[in-house]
């Protein structure tokens, strides 16, 4: 991406690579971004595969109310012809598929499976992650989807996941696993094939973690999509005005109860907006990335209509908080 700051990029980045990995620390919305990215690409007309690698049930629930399973299913069809299909990929399943691919069957297959992935994986650094990425590489090669959106594992597991191929290349002697690692590495490090979309919140700790994650991703030689800042309060400059002055200017006489209520909410809102502006400045100073702000929607539980609002924000459609009414409906 062009290293400009404070600009909303156009939406062509979404399909600039075959695979987009959404990555963020716990609770910042990497699953939400994965779902939103998949929807946005489908709205552009792409055939999208949404892959959950960590059994995150919410990823499927946002679309049709059911968790993703290892069996691919349709999640969404767009009038443009685009579509979203979804599936989960577990290390165990990827291991089985890998054995299939290597032509391992019969007794030997049962024996190897009985050894349990845990035991085999213990002796091979990053094996579980590498198997999952290997499966994604197979899906990319199969060419059934224009775009594969992968929700990376959360919390402390993002970097080990993305680094698993590099780690294996350091530790593993020539053989099938090394070949696998080389192929996965080739996919991850090619900007035409993979980009990592980092997501964060406009708060101190998530910003610190996004900066660390960006450094890790760059050190691995992976290319980075625009930075997505989730949960941004809409800019409402009026919150910074004293309530009494705002009421006088509007020609409205407030009861003391109304004034108390507005002072409480406006103070909180103004402080959060200041905090948000400060954290966005820190991101600007630290990261040479274009960035996209996703609005904080006034609901703790996202629904399908919220997903559509977020997808249009991701695609750069102008957002205004008035689109979302307090009763949770969108206009």
């Amino acid at each position, binding site marked *: 991406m062009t290293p400009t700051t404070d600009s909303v990029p156009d939406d062509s980045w979404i399909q600039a690579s075959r695979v987009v990995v959404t990555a963020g620390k716990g609770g910042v919305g990497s699953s939400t971004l994965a779902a939103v990215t998949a929807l946005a690409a489908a709205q552009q007309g792409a055939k999208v595969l949404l892959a959950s690698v960590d059994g995150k049930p919410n990823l499927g629930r946002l679309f049709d109310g059911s968790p993703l399973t290892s069996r691919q299913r349709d999640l969404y069809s767009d009038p443009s012809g685009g579509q979203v299909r979804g599936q989960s990929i577990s290390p165990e399943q990827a291991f089985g598929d890998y054995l299939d691919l290597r032509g391992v069957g019969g007794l030997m297959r049962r024996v190897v499976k*009985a050894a349990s992935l*845990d035991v085999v994986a213990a*002796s091979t650094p990053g094996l579980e992650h590498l198997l999952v990425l290997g499966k994604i590489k197979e899906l990319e090669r199969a060419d059934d989807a224009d775009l594969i959106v992968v929700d990376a594992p959360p919390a402390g597991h993002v970097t080990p996941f993305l680094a698993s191929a590099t780690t294996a290349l350091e530790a593993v002697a020539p053989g099938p696993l*090394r070949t696998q690692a080389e192929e996965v590495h080739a996919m991850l490090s090619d900007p035409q094939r993979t980009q990592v979309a980092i997501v964060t919140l406009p708060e101190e700790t998530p910003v610190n*973690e996004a900066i660390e994650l960006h450094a890790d991703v760059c050190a691995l030689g992976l290319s980075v999509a625009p930075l997505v800042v989730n949960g941004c309060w809409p800019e409402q400059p*009026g*919150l910074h005005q004293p*309530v009494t002055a705002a009421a006088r200017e509007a020609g409205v006489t407030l009861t003391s109860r109304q004034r108390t209520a*507005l002072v409480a909410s406006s*103070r909180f809102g103004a402080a959060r907006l200041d905090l948000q502006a400060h954290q966005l400045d820190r991101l600007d100073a630290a990261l040479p990335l274009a960035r996209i702000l996703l609005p904080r929607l006034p609901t703790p539980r996202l629904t399908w209509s919220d997903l559509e609002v977020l997808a249009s924000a991701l695609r750069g459609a102008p957002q205004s908080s008035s689109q979302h009414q307090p009763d949770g409906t969108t206009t």
Partner: protein
Amino acid sequence: MTADPAAATFAELVDTSALVVTCGPGGVGKTTTAAAIGLLGARAGRRVVVVTIDPARRLADALGIPAETADDPHRVRGLGRMKGTLDVLMLDAERTFDRLILDKAGKQAEGILNNPIYRSIAGSLSGAQEYMAIERLHQLHEAGEHDLIVVDTPPSRHAVDILTAPDRLASFFGHPVYRTLVGPSRAMARVTSTATAGFAWAVKRLAGPQIVEDTLDFFSSISGMEDGLRKRAAAVSKLLRNQDTSFVLVTSPRAEAIDEALHLNEALQDGGYPMRAAVANLVHPLPPACTIDPALVRAGSALDDQLRHHGELTALAVAERAELATLVDVIESTKHDDVVFCQVELLAQDVHALDTLAQIADALSAPAA
């Protein structure tokens, strides 16, 4: 969350527990909650240590501790008058594992510590980090220098990992393949056991012959430890279910967090772990009601901004409280003992300074509204 006025309080919980384990999904302020509980204990005159996990260094953020602090207890000062003491400790999973090996492996220890397979396991074996948080807790418990240990569980793929970690590690060392590998005759085992042959074949095919050699060496050198490790896992498992252990479930009001907290609550009940409190962090404050006819207010004016924000904040705060009410209902319907419910509102500032940490401690100990 609303609480039954007759229910237990956080002050009682901190007074009567020897061990507090905070658990919950990532990004909900688990570490800050652990630190605030520790602070409550220290105020009440207890000698407290808060154990947190190394990689994210979240407690360091919250407490302003220098990043280079090692995994030994570090005294926290500047939190106002405390009758007791507050130490914090950053868990270093690999060092804890090393310490366990040194403790249990005798003269084999050096060989194990230098084995590349061991290094890989210490850093990456599924459950190793979770297990080590618990192992460190056991070490501190045995050392007896503190009378309240607060453990902040590591950010797991799934929050229940922490509970099953001792069992998983024990079952890893008790696995049939592993048992064959460490059997009396390695040479015999290699040719006679199909399981071992399969294992060696798989690893060799996957990763090359050197790794097979290292693995066999590792399993063989660690064989003397198996019994000790399993006993330790059993002891830790018992400690976690003691009467003076309290699990504190930490969540945020967001749907993903609530869903995981419900799942975790079930796992705690099923496993017989003493679940004593649930804390909801990051809850948006509910402003007093304010109704003004929107027709009176010009669009785009400052008052319009203020009204709209009031509406959004109210909608969010109300919906969050409804999510939390569901959680409270489920916990109360599955739990026989008193559970302390506590709701900590999102502060206007981020929590990174000591005074805001003290504010959270105050919120925890405040009587229920």
